Each structure stands twice: as structure tokens, then as C-alpha cells.
């Protein structure tokens, strides 16, 4: 009784990690993805995130139950589908991660430095943020993305995001649009979503991030996705929850309105 489907799970990851070019017959990649989606390890992050949300933590020994993520204190249902948005108390447009950071600092007494240092989990240290985002993201499942553009600062973030998406810079002259504005493109074998196609923006925004990444054995968030793109573009480390990262997310998420949320996702 040695061979179990624990091995199969590892096999499924291997299938996803080594995609094959388009071929006739059953798509091995799709089979692997389906297997992972049915039993997404990201669900373990959802459960841990739920526990962390209600646990009294930090120097102020408080839970996040008084955190206003946009729909009132403590409400997590549906908030992901309506972020980023403007918050009067900070006078800023905030995405889920920057808003959680605000709450962790003001309600729980964590320091910004500490949160930023632990923003991305490693094999040696889990990130609380990745777990919280998984939990809160999953609480919009089945709902349609509906990111507001009412406040002038929301309109500014959207337009700045559009500008930044197309802004070329760095030693390789890249912008986001270099890789994400054409149909059917790949870097090596990695498919690139075309963000000019409404259906693809909806899919990325509503089902893309947070996602469990098989190659990294943890859940990654939208902030990490942007950080990693920045790294590939040979730009310096993108500031966590920087106004630029939030503006890009505002631009994309608003254009993803109508997409039905299903999170966490699962990716290579």
C-alpha cells in the first residue's frame, strides 16, 4: 500500500509545469489544471486566512473584525469584487492588500515594515497576507466584479493605470502592453493573457489572483504578479502596495467588471 494518489498530485504538478504545444487529442495541460482546480491546495490558505482574520493578533491584540474593506466593518463577503476603491479615512484608492495593511497597522498595531517584509511567503516562512487575501478573495466567489469609478480619485487611478500599462521604460524598453496586448502570444511556452480582450481581462481579474502556484508551493497575490512582471522587465523591486501597483490594478479590475469571481485560482 505504498503507491497512493499523493504521487499523482506531484505528477499533476509536473504536467502543469511542463506544458506541451497545442496538439490534437486530449490536452494534457487541461487535464492537469482540472485536477488541481478540483482539489486546489489554495483552499488550505483560505482556511488559514479565515483563522487569522478572526484571531486576536498583533501588539494591540485585536482581530480584523472591525476592518472596513469597503462594505462596512468586518464584512468580507463581496469586498474583493469591488476593489480597488476609494477610502475616505486614508483619502486613497486601495486594493485588497493595501487596505488589509491599513487595518493590520491601525487595528492590530503591526508595523508597515514588518508586513512588507513578510508580504511574500517562502518555503521557510508562510505569509499571513497571502492567507488573508485567499480567504477574503474566496468570499466573493460567484459574484460579479463590480469595481466602482465614482470618486475622482478612482477615476484618476484608472486613467493613471491605463497610462502606466502602456508606459515603456527600462533597459529592455518593456511596458505591460509589450506582452499583454496581442492575441495568442507566449514567452517561451508560457501563455500571455491579452488584456485588450474583455473576456481575458475578466478571467484574469476574477479568477486569476490570488492563486496557488504549483512551482512556488504557495499562494501568490496580484501584488506579487505585478512585482514579478516588474522583475522580468528589469525594473527595481516594485514597492508593495505602491500607488503605481494599485493604479494598474484599478485599471485592470475595472475593465474586468462582469467577470464572475472564483478564487483562489491555481496556476503553474
Amino acid at each position, binding site marked *: 500500500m505504498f503507491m*497512493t*494518489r*499523493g504521487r499523482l498530485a506531484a505528477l499533476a504538478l509536473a504536467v502543469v509545469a511542463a506544458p506541451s504545444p497545442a496538439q490534437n487529442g486530449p490536452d494534457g495541460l487541461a487535464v492537469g489544471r482540472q485536477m488541481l482546480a478540483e*482539489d486546489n*491546495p489554495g483552499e*488550505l490558505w483560505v*482556511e488559514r486566512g479565515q483563522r487569522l482574520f478572526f484571531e486576536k493578533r498583533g501588539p494591540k491584540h485585536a482581530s480584523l473584525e472591525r476592518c472596513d474593506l469597503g462594505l462596512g466593518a468586518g464584512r468580507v463577503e463581496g469586498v474583493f469584487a469591488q476593489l480597488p476603491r476609494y477610502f475616505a479615512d486614508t483619502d486613497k484608492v486601495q486594493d485588497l492588500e493595501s487596505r488589509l495593511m491599513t487595518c493590520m497597522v491601525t487595528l492590530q498595531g503591526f508595523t508597515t515594515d514588518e508586513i512588507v517584509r513578510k508580504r511574500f511567503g517562502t518555503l*521557510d516562512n508562510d505569509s499571513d497576507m497571502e492567507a488573508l487575501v485567499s480567504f477574503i478573495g474566496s468570499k466573493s466567489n460567484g459574484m460579479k466584479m463590480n469595481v466602482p469609478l465614482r470618486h475622482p480619485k478612482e477615476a484618476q487611478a484608472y486613467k493613471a493605470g491605463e497610462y502606466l500599462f502602456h508606459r515603456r521604460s527600462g533597459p529592455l524598453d518593456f511596458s505591460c502592453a509589450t506582452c499583454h496586448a496581442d492575441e495568442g502570444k507566449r514567452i517561451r511556452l508560457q501563455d500571455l493573457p491579452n488584456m485588450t480582450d474583455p473576456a481575458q481581462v475578466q478571467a484574469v481579474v476574477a479568477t486569476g489572483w490570488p492563486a496557488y502556484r504549483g512551482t512556488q508551493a504557495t499562494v501568490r497575490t496580484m501584488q506579487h504578479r505585478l512585482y514579478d512582471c516588474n522583475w522580468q522587465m528589469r525594473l527595481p523591486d516594485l514597492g508593495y502596495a505602491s500607488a503605481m501597483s494599485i493604479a494598474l490594478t484599478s485599471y485592470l479590475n475595472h475593465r474586468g467588471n462582469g467577470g464572475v469571481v472564483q478564487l483562489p485560482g491555481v496556476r503553474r
Partner: protein
Amino acid sequence: MAEPMRIRATLQGDVADVRILMRHPMETGQRKDAKGDIVPTHFIQNVLVTHNGRTVLDAQWSQAVSRDPFLGLRVKGAKAGDRIAVTWTDNKGDKRTDEATVAAAS
């Protein structure tokens, strides 16, 4: 501190389709940490699955099983409401037991 498992058990005819996600580092003893030190082996050695208290699977695992393992099995002769319990024990003696109830086919 071991994290809870996620267990789903769904009836298909008289067979329960049991799917278990475990949170475990499953260190092979070959990875180095950020400081360059070898991370010692740390892996689940034994997995025991019971159906209403009767053992239906007793597996010996090695470091070859992936991080955050997924285990799927099918238990014959199950009924809705039956209890499925899963216990893993790792090489450091850490242990975790979680339970689920077999759900009727949806």
C-alpha cells in the same frame, strides 16, 4: 504546529470518493534555506484512513511525496453520514487527525 487537513468525501453509488489536502512542508533533506543551510528531512511517514473506525488505508510515505500532499481514495460500501477520519504522522513525531462526514451525491 500542524495545520488542519481539508477532507471531502462524496458518495457515488455505494462508493465514497475521498479527497484529502494536507498542509506539510515534506522536506526532502536536500533543499537549502536562505542562509544556505540544509533543511533537515521533515515528511509524513504514515497516513491512516478509517471508515467508521475501520482502517481502510494504512500508507507508508517517503520524502518523494510533494509538499502539501493531495491524497485521493475510494471507499466501498459507504453510506451518507459515515465518518471518515484521517491521521498523518511525520518523522518528527508530529501528528494530525481530522474527520469528515460522507456527503450524499449532489
